[in-house]
């Protein structure tokens, strides 16, 4: 069976696009390490909102034809994240009237990306300047990664509702606004396409639209009051590309989301869990595509449940991390080199002009070399080596860091009390796993089986059979590991132990519902 790689979309010619189509062909255009899982979620929401306005949320009319017009909301963003005057004005001004006047003047000068900034509409929306300041401080305090030192135009208010959603942009000092894909690097678009192509797209559309877009929290009106009427980007955003029309991980991702969205908890409480499951499934997607290309056995992640002492499981977990971490890069090389095993390549080499014919194949397959590259080497094999070299260098810059960055971001990996990174899930991630995978309750043993089947997590001795049989670990090493998980879950209120031999993992929200 060959791996599915859809054709590269041609209608959106993007001059600033990638020099060759390798990472993109395997995983899509594109996965990007600097886009943390939270930002993936936010980009997804901006796409969803835009497409919902067009009446086609989570519907793809044609594969890889997504084109949408996101919100920009520059007034809101200037007020919350590019507004250093409030404190000084409050200190200097002697009256409320003076405060507004002083602040409006200063803001008119410093606001970015807005023609002729005029914020005077705010005066009638607040009873006093202090009230206005309190609201700003609230929005700053609840911002996503509010304490990061990112540029102001890459900071985001909490997604209270439709008015609080907007795309990441670059605002230059001269006032020009461009979408440089720095932190919204299309990974959210990929997430959108994955969910749209999943079996559960219809159910998800209903849940997402009703929970996040149509019945926003009252606090969304704070964003509304500050922004005024919604502001859209000037142009549509197109060019997203996801290489497979379907994938088991898309379905699983969607079912994880549905399980979380169907919990009897406020919609906003679901977001951190959605973010974590998104990060996890995207990591597994990256690894699984690499594995498929390399024709390797299913991905497994040996997880250490952190123990006070160094253990065999800790070493195996670090090995497992290391092994998985290398897969994407190996996949890149394999992807390029496998072209030399094709008949077409053989024919090209045997032809009158092997260099030209081989180059044609590379151009067709990878979009490289793109013509104005004149450092052409003579031998076709050298071309391939050169391409592998370049692709690897580029891969290492971003796509190759995804496993490392996101695993840490969602609490899957850690270096706690060790020099090597390993899979050692945090309590928060464990809780998310429980609420995503356990309906009401599940026997602990079955829980271990379920997270192994779904995500490849190896925690207990039953899942670690291959390692135990191979003699790299004792049964006891892994049963101790499982025992530690049992104790951690119990202390988190996620597990009820009936006796030494029997325990249930419980979904805390479903339990609250039943009570």
């Amino acid at each position: 069976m060959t791996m599915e790689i859809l054709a590269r979309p041609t209608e959106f010619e993007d001059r600033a696009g990638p020099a060759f189509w390798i990472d993109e062909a395997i995983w899509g255009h594109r996965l990007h390490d600097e886009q943390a899982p939270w930002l993936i979620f936010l980009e997804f929401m901006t796409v969803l909102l835009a497409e919902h306005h067009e009446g086609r949320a989570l519907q793809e009319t044609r594969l890889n034809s997504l084109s949408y017009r996101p919100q920009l909301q520059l007034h809101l963003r200037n007020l919350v994240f590019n507004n250093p005057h409030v404190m000084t004005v409050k200190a200097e001004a002697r009256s409320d009237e003076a405060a507004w006047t002083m602040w409006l003047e200063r803001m008119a000068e410093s606001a970015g990306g807005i023609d002729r900034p005029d914020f005077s509409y705010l005066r009638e929306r607040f009873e006093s300047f202090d009230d206005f300041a309190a609201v700003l401080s609230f929005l700053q305090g609840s911002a996503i990664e509010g304490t990061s030192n990112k540029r102001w135009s890459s900071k985001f208010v909490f997604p209270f509702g439709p008015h609080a959603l907007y795309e990441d942009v670059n605002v230059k000092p001269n006032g020009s606004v461009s979408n440089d894909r720095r932190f919204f690097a299309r990974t959210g678009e990929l997430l959108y396409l994955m969910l749209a192509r999943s079996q559960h797209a219809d159910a998800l559309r209903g849940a997402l639209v009703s929970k996040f877009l149509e019945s926003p929290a009252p606090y969304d009106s704070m964003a509304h009051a500050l922004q005024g009427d919604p502001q859209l980007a000037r142009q549509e955003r197109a060019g997203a590309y996801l290489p497979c029309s379907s994938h088991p991980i898309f379905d699983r991702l969607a079912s994880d989301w549905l399980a979380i969205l169907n919990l009897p908890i406020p919609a906003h409480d679901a977001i951190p869990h959605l973010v974590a499951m998104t990060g996890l499934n995207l990591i597994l997607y990256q690894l699984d595509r690499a594995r498929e290309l390399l024709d390797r056995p299913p991905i497994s992640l040996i997880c250490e449940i952190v123990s006070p002492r160094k253990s065999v499981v800790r070493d195996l977990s670090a090995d497992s991390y290391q092994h998985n971490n290398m897969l994407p890069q190996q996949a890149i090389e394999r992807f390029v080199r496998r072209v030399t095993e094709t008949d077409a390549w053989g024919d090209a080499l045997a032809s009158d002009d092997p260099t030209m014919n081989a180059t044609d194949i590379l151009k067709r397959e990878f979009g490289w070399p793109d013509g104005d590259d004149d450092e052409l080497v003579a031998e076709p094999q050298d071309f391939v080596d050169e391409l592998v070299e370049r692709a690897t260098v580029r891969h290492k810059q971003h796509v190759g860091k995804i496993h490392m960055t996101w695993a840490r971001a969602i609490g899957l990996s850690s270096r706690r009390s060790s020099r090597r990174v390993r899979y050692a899930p945090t309590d928060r991630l464990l809780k998310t796993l429980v609420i995503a995978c356990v309906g009401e309750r599940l026997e602990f043993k079955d829980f271990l089986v379920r997270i192994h089947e779904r995500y490849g997590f190896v925690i207990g001795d039953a899942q670690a059979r291959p390692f135990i049989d191979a003699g790299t670990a004792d049964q006891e090493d892994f049963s101790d590991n499982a025992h530690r998980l049992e104790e951690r879950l119990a202390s988190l209120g996620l597990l009820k132990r009936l006796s030494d031999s029997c325990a249930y993992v419980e979904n805390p929200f479903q339990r609250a519902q039943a009570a």
Partner: protein
Amino acid sequence: MCRSSLTNWTVGWNMLETGGQGLSANPTVTAWVRFLRNYGPIPTNDNMYDESIQRALRRHKIRPITLPAPLRDQLVPMFKSDAAVSHIITGTAGDGKTYHCREVWTALGGDVTAWNLGDKIQRLAFDDRTLVIVKDLSELRDDESNELIAEFARDVADPATRTFYLFAANHGQLLEKLKSAPDTAEIVRVSKVVEDLLVTGITSDPGIALELTDLSRSPAAKVAMAIIDEVTRHEGWNGCENCGASTDGRCPIFENRRRLIGEGPDDPIRQRLTALIELSERNGSHFPVRQLLALVANAILGHPDARDGLMTCNDVAAIQASGKVDLASIYRNIFGENLKPSKAEKTELFRKLNAFGIGAETSNRVDNLLVYGADDPAYAADYQALILSDPVYGATPAYATAQRTYLEGAEDGDRAGFLNVLRAQRQRLFFTMPEDKAEDYALWDLTVFRYAGLYLDVADKIAAKQSVPRAALNLVVRGLNRIFTGMLVQNQDELVLATSGSYSQSKRSPLLDELISVPRSGGEEVAIVADPGDGSFGVSVKLVRGKEIPPVFLSLSPTRFEFLGRVAEGALPSSFSLECHEDLLAFKARLLRQTENRRRLDGEEEASDGELVLRFIDLNANGRAQPRRVIVRV
């Protein structure tokens, strides 16, 4: 405990070893100590099962140890009555399941000889009915149990049935058997009921006539005291006081037993041990009878130099000669310090007791006493009363030497030695500190649970239906307020219910939802009350006068109480935070749902005609949270 009202169940002693008595020791005592030793945490420990105890009782003439067993008195008349219902007894290994089955069998006229033949499924016909008893479901082969479970599933769903069942199994086996039975609708239905009964104690399917008793939920603190009484006062000890080893007053076995008997029920060691077991159980760690027996045996017989860490009478002479009697201290043995650290860590019993950190935790006052007490006139009286008065485990030569060396400027190695001695002394003080000095020395600072004293006080008051100490409620309210808001608020006469506005996992919550009065006022009240479900207690928040909105209840385990106490005090130990923080946020979420409910009932739902009313929390100079209204027009 009122002995006469309870029937007793038997704990026999398996005579595994005899003979080899010491020269001076009384032979019957020596034999008895050997039996007792087998109940300790030793590798060859197969005398935990009723079956083998029965065999031992038949072989040897030993007076059985008797412990209270109220369940039998409840089951026997129930099976005879018109309202008979099938019953499942479950629990952890060693909780007494098989014993109960046999007792019911004999009490209902079953033949003991027939029982002893050991059929796995016993059927007893009496009056108009049949009782099917299986003392251990896991003994059945799958084909046997499948057939039986199918019958069982039919009968419990049939109101007219004349066949009733009494099954015993531990939790895991019970579920295993139900799972491996064929998936018929009847079995699926009954399995669901069993699962519900196990996990929540109630079932939502009234069509299934089935009850379940989980022996692991019986109060272990009481059982522990009964075991201590039975073991320490068993006639096997007769003659112990006349033994050559104890006449010089330094036989550790004699000494430990004497201390465990104590001086009446108010003796500190019993009170403190009861307190530890009770706190542990309220935190969800059960002590089955097996573990309590092991605890008592280990407490009396522990010494690190004996084989497997447990002495026999024959070991005593050598231990006395080596001058290491103090290492047999019962106060160390309670924490398994007589065992190898790896062994103690793997023994659930000691893992649970060591969770209190007794020996490692301390207060300045206790350590001052232990380190400088010998020389400091201010401590002279207490030093005499608490240390010097106990020459066996207190002011031992080892302690005095280590203390001296330390004070005179010890090498590093000696310092570690002193720290070990100090550890043993703290453990001893925890169990021996008289009640009237407990407060002065902040007894519970010797444990991880510094508020446990207050906690137990509240528990006692609740059980006696007396009013709860005001300090406890203040502590709880202030702790809750700080967690609810994420700010260092001081309010303790009102609950400051705050929201983050975003998601409830957020640490800071700057928006005020409601202030709820702690003293009763306008239907509102925050109080510490008994948990109607079990014997524990919790904090209950009433929002309205009537019953339209039920009070919101949060059960207070010792861990949660400690967490709230530490937060209220300002210092938050990170080891606690993950366990409790989310629980309390979930409690807040429930409160928020109910206040919203109340506003809806009161018709106060915010009319959002283009106007958003926000109430931010301002802290005034005294740290009190106060609302500040902000209106936003859209």
